[in-house]
């Protein structure tokens, strides 16, 4: 009977029923069979919703949406162009850096492809970069910033796995930088091979671009400085970021008229509401799984076939890539993390390192053929057939897989800064 109900729920889940209703259904079912009052679930949900982390999620999301609606992306590109444009392949490095920064702030990879790609792709083509390379670049740099603070997926991972946000923020830095660095080298090589013309360095342009973006420059300091120095709590850094961005974009630059604010608030809070309600409904389910020792049973099963942590990590990567390709990042985190974390810990894998492996995998999975979400978004945004988007993405994905291997098998990269 229970088995049948679970089967129906799984079918509904993959047919597009909102994830939170599936989790709620499961939890209610479990509570009912355990003869526990269903209000227990609401208690958990309410408790989660009133934790300070939710304040951070809400405010960072709002700040990210404000930035994406302003002309900040344009100024950011202008500035990096003035500073780095003279390098061979300069514009492609700019694309990588600005996309990473933007995704870190907004936490939504689709948004980066839509907001930044629309400006960067024409610029790359004008700069005589090969079309295939440019298209691949804007499609795959959309996910690049997920490992940098204050990215929303890191915060959600911390909530689900009950790790410290600050530690995860630190752990993501080196792997994230490695990713940007290797992709930049690859882009430079491509640009040199295609004989892309270089632009000259103008001091005047730099000073003008700096003046243009003067108010946005302290932003990383506000976000990172506060969090890393430990001077502010994460929720406080989020509040300062939100107020700062609000003042800069609405009052100083006047990119966003006051009348547009309600619409931006609404859009961002719809995302927050969606995440909040899933987290709240998954909590009860997770607790049940742990009580029923499901992860330990899974571990025994896996242990019987896989002896070494090396092989386990390999299989984990393949599994997560498939998950990342099929699901969006938030649902993937909420469904899979509670199941895998105890198993991985039993293999002796550091939970923080595991978090970085998770996020890297899901990030790459989102642009993995055949059904990675970023490929669809890119195909829609740039009006190109899917087959073409997949073809141009392959070199980038291969390189990202190499980086994934490094991140997976060199735990030092993730753990150096937190020890």
């Amino acid at each position, binding site marked *: 009977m229970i088995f049948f109900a679970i089967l129906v729920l799984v079918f509904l889940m993959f047919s*597009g029923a909102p994830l939170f209703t599936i989790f709620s259904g499961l939890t209610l079912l479990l509570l009912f069979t355990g003869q526990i009052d269903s209000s227990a679930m609401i208690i958990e949900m309410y408790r989660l919703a009133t934790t300070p982390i939710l304040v951070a999620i809400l405010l960072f999301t709002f700040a990210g949406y404000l930035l994406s609606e302003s002309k900040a992306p344009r100024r950011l590109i202008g500035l990096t162009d003035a500073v780095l444009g003279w390098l061979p392949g300069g514009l492609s490095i700019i694309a990588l850096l600005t996309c990473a920064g933007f995704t870190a702030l907004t936490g939504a990879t689709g948004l980066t492809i839509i907001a930044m790609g629309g400006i960067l792709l024409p610029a790359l083509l004008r700069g005589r970069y090969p079309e295939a390379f440019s298209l691949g670049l804007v499609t795959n740099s959309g996910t690049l910033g997920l490992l940098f603070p204050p990215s929303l997926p890191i915060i959600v991972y911390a909530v689900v796995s009950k790790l410290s946000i600050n530690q995860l923020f630190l752990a993501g830095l080196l792997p994230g930088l490695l990713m940007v660095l290797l992709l930049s080298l690859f882009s430079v090589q491509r640009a040199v091979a295609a004989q892309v013309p270089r632009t000259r360095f103008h001091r005047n342009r730099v000073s003008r671009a700096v003046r243009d973006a003067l108010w946005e420059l302290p932003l990383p300091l506000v976000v990172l400085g506060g969090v890393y120095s430990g001077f502010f709590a994460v929720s406080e850094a989020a509040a300062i970021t939100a107020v700062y961005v609000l003042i800069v974009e609405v009052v100083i630059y006047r990119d966003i008229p006051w009348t547009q604010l309600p619409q931006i608030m609404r859009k961002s809070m719809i995302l927050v*509401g969606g995440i909040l309600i899933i987290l709240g409904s998954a909590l009860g389910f997770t607790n049940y799984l742990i009580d029923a020792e499901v992860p330990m049973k899974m571990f025994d099963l896996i242990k019987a076939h896989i002896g070494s942590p090396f092989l386990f990590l390999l299989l984990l990567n393949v599994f997560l890539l498939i998950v990342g390709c099929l699901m969006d990042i938030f649902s993937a985190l909420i469904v899979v993390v509670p199941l895998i974390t105890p198993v991985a810990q039993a293999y002796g894998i550091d939970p923080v390192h595991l978090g970085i492996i998770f996020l890297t995998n899901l990030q790459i999975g989102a642009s993995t053929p055949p059904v990675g979400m970023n490929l669809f978004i890119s195909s829609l945004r740039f009006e190109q057939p899917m087959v073409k988007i997949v073809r141009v993405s392959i070199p980038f994905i291969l390189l990202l897989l190499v980086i994934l291997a490094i991140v997976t098998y060199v735990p030092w990269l993730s753990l150096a800064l937190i020890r």
Partner: protein
Amino acid sequence: MDRWEQIDREIDRAEGILLVLLLSLMIGTAFLQIVLRNLFATGLAWGDPLVRNLVVWVGFIGAALATREGKHITIDLLLRGMPQRTRGVIERLTHLFSSVICGLLTFAAIKFIRNEALMGSRTFWEIPTWVPGLILPATFALMTFRFGLRAFKPLSLQTHRTSEQSKAL
């Protein structure tokens, strides 16, 4: 235009206004707290609980709005590449299911409120804790209504948008 749809639109307008007011109040209070704490080494005793309760309100109103706009996080693997008509039937089915679940959650939330009221605990400004908690049964009831509305919507009003498009927009 359907009468129920009209009602839903009015609720949506009110929600939108409430959301803007509460979010502004929340950002203001959170920032004021930081200024007071760091510059004046003081703080409002009711500041933090107020902010946290506002998060609950704003978040759950956001969830109700997500229901109206079809923006909840979903995994619709099976729907991709299905013929339009089969899709329509399955979508109604999932909406009906979601409506039932939200109905059960509304019921659970009402019980939660009743228990809180019986315990008589209080939060900031001596407000009983069940008062801010009211947002849960309210928004769950609204979601029950909205999913129901979509499950029983007449065919002519059904909008066909693929999941990829709606996610990209």
